[in-house]
């Protein structure tokens, strides 16, 4: 642990249990349940944007809820090392859907003022109102908007209100859970640029969760790739895209269609995402991996550190810097 560490996740797991019957409860039997997050260790440093990517069901949103304290982990620990002043950092969250995360019966002023009142950051009506106006301007809206209600705004504007509300709590740490997935491309670009500016100017540390690799590449300093609850690779953004070490990362990068019209090939990942409740034995990715061998089916791969300070979970040291190194896999789904 170094002085610059801001958030440390130490072998964090979260199991969602299904409802047990009375007999099961009396017998105190351990009925599996779905391991949504499994043994994730991660460190976020001061002033850094950590990106988390993965497909649906990989546990990235669960991890966000664990970090924000909305849920307690089943095992492992999440800690914020105390900063110079000895206080726990304030954190705020921005959610995916700006339509359901704003209260339609509250004015924008009420919404943005709430964190200020809760944390007693300003005293007196006038001071609070002045702060609300300042925040609205900061996210690209106008002070006059404070009197309006959320339904008078478009999706992009609502997301700006959500950002203003998060900033109102004067957070040191921001958790962004798919903040632009519900928005159109041209609006998404505006919000991403706004977030980038704010992070730079306010020196925020943040956890940026998305399924879109291009978005995370723009936003994050370091990126963690999750698959079925496990963190399979972690590296700096540049390193991850230049030289991915885990086959899943490589396949995920290639699977998203780019805008090159001269090469129209598609690169699907063989097979389908297994049911997260019953992850495959050994390496969780072996059912879809073009490099899988016997060892992958039996043994859980170790965590390996890279010379660049990253981490990956694979039995082999593969050179995956080029997209076209793959042995042909018959893409027949199971």
């Amino acid at each position, binding site marked *: 642990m170094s002085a610059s560490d801001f958030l440390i996740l130490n072998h964090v797991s979260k199991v969602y249990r299904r409802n047990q019957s009375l007999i099961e409860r009396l017998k105190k039997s351990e009925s599996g349940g779905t391991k949504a997050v499994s043994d994730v260790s991660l460190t976020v440093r001061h002033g850094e944007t950590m990106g988390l990517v993965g*497909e*649906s069901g990989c546990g990235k949103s669960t991890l966000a809820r664990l970090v924000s304290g909305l849920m307690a982990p089943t095992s492992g620990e999440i800690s914020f090392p105390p900063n110079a002043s000895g206080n726990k950092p304030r954190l705020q969250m921005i959610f995916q859907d700006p339509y359901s995360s704003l209260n339609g019966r509250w004015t924008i002023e009420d919404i943005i003022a709430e964190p200020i009142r809760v944390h007693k950051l300003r005293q007196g009506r006038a001071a609070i109102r002045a702060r609300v106006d300042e925040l609205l301007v900061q996210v690209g809206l106008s002070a006059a908007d404070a009197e309006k209600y959320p339904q008078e705004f*478009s999706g*992009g*504007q609502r997301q700006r209100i959500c950002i203003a509300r998060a900033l109102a709590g004067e957070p040191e740490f921001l958790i962004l859970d798919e903040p632009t997935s519900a928005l*159109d*491309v*041209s*609006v*998404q*670009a*505006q919000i*991403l*640029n706004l977030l980038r500016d704010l992070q730079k100017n306010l020196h925020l540390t943040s956890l940026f969760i998305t*399924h*879109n*690799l*291009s*978005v995370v*590449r*723009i936003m994050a300093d370091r990126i963690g790739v999750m698959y079925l609850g496990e963190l399979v690779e972690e590296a700096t953004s540049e390193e991850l*895209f*230049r030289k991915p070490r885990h086959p899943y990362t490589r*396949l*995920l990068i290639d*699977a*998203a*269609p*780019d*805008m*090159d*019209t*001269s090469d*129209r*090939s*598609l*690169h*699907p*990942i063989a097979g*389908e*995402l297994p049911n997260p409740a019953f992850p495959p034995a050994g390496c969780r990715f072996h059912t879809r991996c073009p490099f899988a061998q016997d060892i992958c089916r039996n043994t859980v791969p170790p965590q390996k550190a890279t010379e660049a300070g990253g981490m990956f979970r694979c039995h082999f040291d593969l050179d995956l810097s080029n997209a076209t190194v793959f042995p042909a896999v018959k*893409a*027949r*789904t*199971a």
Partner: protein
Amino acid sequence: MINATAPLLDVRDLTVTINRDGGLVTALDKVSFFVNPGEVLGIVGESGAGKSITGAAIIDLLVPPLKRTGGTITLAGERLDQLSPKAMRGVRGGRIGFVFQDPMTSLNPVITIGQQLCDTIQTHLKLSGSQTKKRALGWLDRVGLPNPDVQFKRFPHQLSGGMRQRVVIALALCADPVLVIADEPTTALDVSVQAHILELLRDLHRESNVSMMLITHDLGVIAKMADRVAVLYAGRVAEISPVGELFNAPKHPYTRGLIRATPMPSATGEMRLDQIPGAMPGLGAVPPGCAFNPRCFRAEGDCRATIPPLHHEESSAFSCFHPLERVTA
């Protein structure tokens, strides 16, 4: 009869309005395009641009208060806009197949997928019982469902999202349509599954040479799938170009803005992100003149006064008074 050069589907001046509190609001404003036989026409735009309304208007599935108020739709020489509702039912699912966005809600949850396929085949192709079942099983196999015999008896909720979308595609194609309209077929799916579905659509398109209208907001999907692309903005056609031209030398400022706003790595691996200021005008709030003028960096007086007409060039068409020059580099 269709001859080789005539378009399969010809849409001219398609206008759709919404009756809102007694006033009429235009949702689609004189949209014109055509689809050639065997071609994939991509339709791209942001939400509210009228992409889905265009698709629904062609097969007359508009839900009130939306109403088609003008324009002609011609499929292989036959005017679809003049057909009776009963005749239109024969076209829907028969000559025109439709793939909906959400595979969770576009299948009937209380009927097995096999039965749903058989119903569609029987309605449109009038085959005998055993032939129908054989054809349904064949389609389940063609869209890549393992063990068609087992899958035939399963209900939609027993399948994953990707598998369900395969069934929806089988339903759209099982009655040998001449045109398939796919409305955001991969938007509800994960990246890795999306590539499978796109590959399947492409294979089926190559095998059957069916024409396709691919409606999506994802420029990546357009780049990989479409032959020609129509860009919609606020209910109007901004530009129609062959896919290579559209991405390399867009004519309409909005097209270029949309391409540059999409986060994509450039050839050097560097990320750039140029935003378009403002947002698309909502229904009924379209400014006078060109709908894009408040957000356009090339807008001049004429853009604010007159709606630019669709200007045709050799292979492309655009509606802009001050189009971007095609740089040949």
